[in-house]
């Protein structure tokens, strides 16, 4: 039986393809013009198609970005269960095929059956690859890239730039980004930025550090590699740049627990993936040196949306929380 499986799969696939061959012209997505379509990918290459892509498979956050502009993908692959993925957990995913819920694992057979005409994933300049096709991803999963052209916005220095990039991509795909309910997200975001800037301007002496405690050591984030932290810095928040990031993995400076007090911010931006309202007290109880960080001792910690934001709407929500934390913070805690 085993030897037959590939043949059966191919047969099944061609039946599906034959059965659906004519349907893509029936106009599922209203497109201003049918094409040709092109988009400048994060890698700098221009991705072209004869017609505007309508059957899109997207990575989690990128899918959320497209959906925020009214473009619904046919398939999604994410790095964790879609129920817990911060980009997807509040979205209605009915009618969207879930192609993977673990980093590096994508069901390409299922993806092929969706007959995609575009794959959307962030471009990671350091790794020179799109999300889902990086080093370490299953060789099988990487074949996703062979199904359709791949395009995405570059990850790097700013979430705002990322959100704007996906706004452009969505627009090129036929989204009406000026529609009131869509544009409202951007307006909310701009208001949130204004409020955040005002809050940081009111606390000129306030310093923060983005931290992630773990059982055997603790990590201080390097804003250079965390676009949302660069955005926060550009809006006046003094996020500490760690002095000696790990050369092999420069996203963080690793500190042994003996050196937990190396940085003394006034407010801790706590990795949102592990933050809970009781986390600070818990870590103070189990790590003898955690409370040697004065801000931790004072309970000055707020969740930091680490490495996931893609949309104006999500950023606005997170930014408002940070604004409140900045307003409430005591700029003399870490002195």
């Amino acid at each position, binding site marked *: 039986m085993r030897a037959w499986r590939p043949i059966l799969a191919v047969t099944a696939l061609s039946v599906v393809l034959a059965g659906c061959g004519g349907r893509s012209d029936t106009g599922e997505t209203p497109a201003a013009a049918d094409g040709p379509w092109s988009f400048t990918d994060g890698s700098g290459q221009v991705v072209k198609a004869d017609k505007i892509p309508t059957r899109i498979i997207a990575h989690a956050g990128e899918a959320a970005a497209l959906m925020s502009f009214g473009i619904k993908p046919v398939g999604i692959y994410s790095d964790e269960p879609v129920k817990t993925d911060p980009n997807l957990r509040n979205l209605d995913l009915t009618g969207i095929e879930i192609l993977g819920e673990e980093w590096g694992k994508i069901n390409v057979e299922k993806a092929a059956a969706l007959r995609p005409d575009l794959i959307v994933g962030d471009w990671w300049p350091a790794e020179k690859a799109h999300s889902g096709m990086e080093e370490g991803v299953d060789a099988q999963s990487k074949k996703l890239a062979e199904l359709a052209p791949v395009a995405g916005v570059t990850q790097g220095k700013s979430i705002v730039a990322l959100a704007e990039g996906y706004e452009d991509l969505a627009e090129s795909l036929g989204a009406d980004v000026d529609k009131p309910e869509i544009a409202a997200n951007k307006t909310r975001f701009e208001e949130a930025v204004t409020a955040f800037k005002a809050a940081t301007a009111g606390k000129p002496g306030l310093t923060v550090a983005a931290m992630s405690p*773990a059982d*055997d050591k603790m990590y201080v984030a390097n804003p250079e590699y965390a676009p949302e932290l660069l955005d926060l810095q550009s809006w006046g928040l003094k996020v500490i740049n760690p002095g000696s990031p790990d050369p092999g993995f420069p996203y963080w400076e690793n500190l042994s627990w003996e*050196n937990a007090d190396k940085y003394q911010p006034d407010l801790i931006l706590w990795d949102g993936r592990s933050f809970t309202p009781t986390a600070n007290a818990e870590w103070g109880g189990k790590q003898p*040196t955690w409370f040697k960080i004065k801000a931790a001792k004072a309970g000055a910690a707020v969740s930091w949306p680490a490495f996931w934001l893609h949309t104006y709407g999500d950023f606005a929500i997170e930014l408002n929380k940070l604004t409140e934390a900045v307003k409430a913070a005591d700029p003399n805690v870490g002195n």
Partner: protein
Amino acid sequence: MSATSRYATRTPARGGRRAIALGPGLAALGVLLAVVAFLSITMGSRSIGLSEVLRALGNLDTDGSITSTVTLELRVPRTLLGILVGAALGVAGAILQGVTRNPLADAGFMGINSGAAAFVVVAVTVLGVRGVGVYIWFAFAGAIAALALVYAIASLGREGATPVKLALAGAAVTAGLVSVTTGIVMTNVDALNELRFWQVGSLAGRYTPVLTGVAPFLLLGLAASLGFGRALNGLALGEDTARGLGQHVTRTRAAAFAVVALLAGAATAACGPIIFVGLVVPHLARLLCGPDYRWILPYSMVLAPIVLLLADVLGRVAAAPDELQVGVVLGVIGAPAFVAIVRYSRLSEV
């Protein structure tokens, strides 16, 4: 002169001469261990002046300064844990090598690491357990369960748990448990994260609660282990000879496995699977004191923590302000060390 005749003439003489020096040698190693322990308390990823360390040790109560917290709450329990865990792994390795008559035997070989790992991921996924302080008990239970299973499988049949059957059962149980662990970890990010921390093998992040939790088991096991010297010497002559000398082979084996379960189970639970110590140190001990297990066991017990603590200090100093896990350091220096021992000693003479 042929190899056999050289053996016949040299071994007894050397053994006799050695026995005289072995006692003082052990004492000297004890002093060396004390020195290494002192290094482990005074050196680390944070540079603290010697006088400050001594002052903190003199107070014996943290005065709230970070130097005294680091000394008393981080380094002292870490060092004590390193001594106990190192001794336990060294002795457990020596006993396993003797009782299975297999020069490659150590805790990992008998399913202990894989059993502990499997129970950790089950505890995380099924029971929602978090944090090293809680899941060490699951790891301990897993290690004991795996070892008991290996022993039970190997004991099937008339001739009992022979070395070959033990090796096969160990490999089979390990393979089965590893596939369970992998299966769970593939689908559960929390389990992966918890396992990743535990699986490296590290003395970091374990403080007084972990130390006081496992210390009674380790001390009991260490005390019991020293009684096995004569029995292991008998087994080294072959089972039939051992029986001929009046030894109850099956009972010896069962008791030895119980002690190993206690030692390696508690050590692995506390610090994760630490490699090479249990494998290499008994060979080092054998190199120093010849084939007599009455000496190999105490030598392993003192040599192993010296090796473990030195590797740990190296990992802490070399990577400051970060730390390298001792499991990583041992992997890097342990492999060439083992090759050297294989090359320059008669490894197969277990």
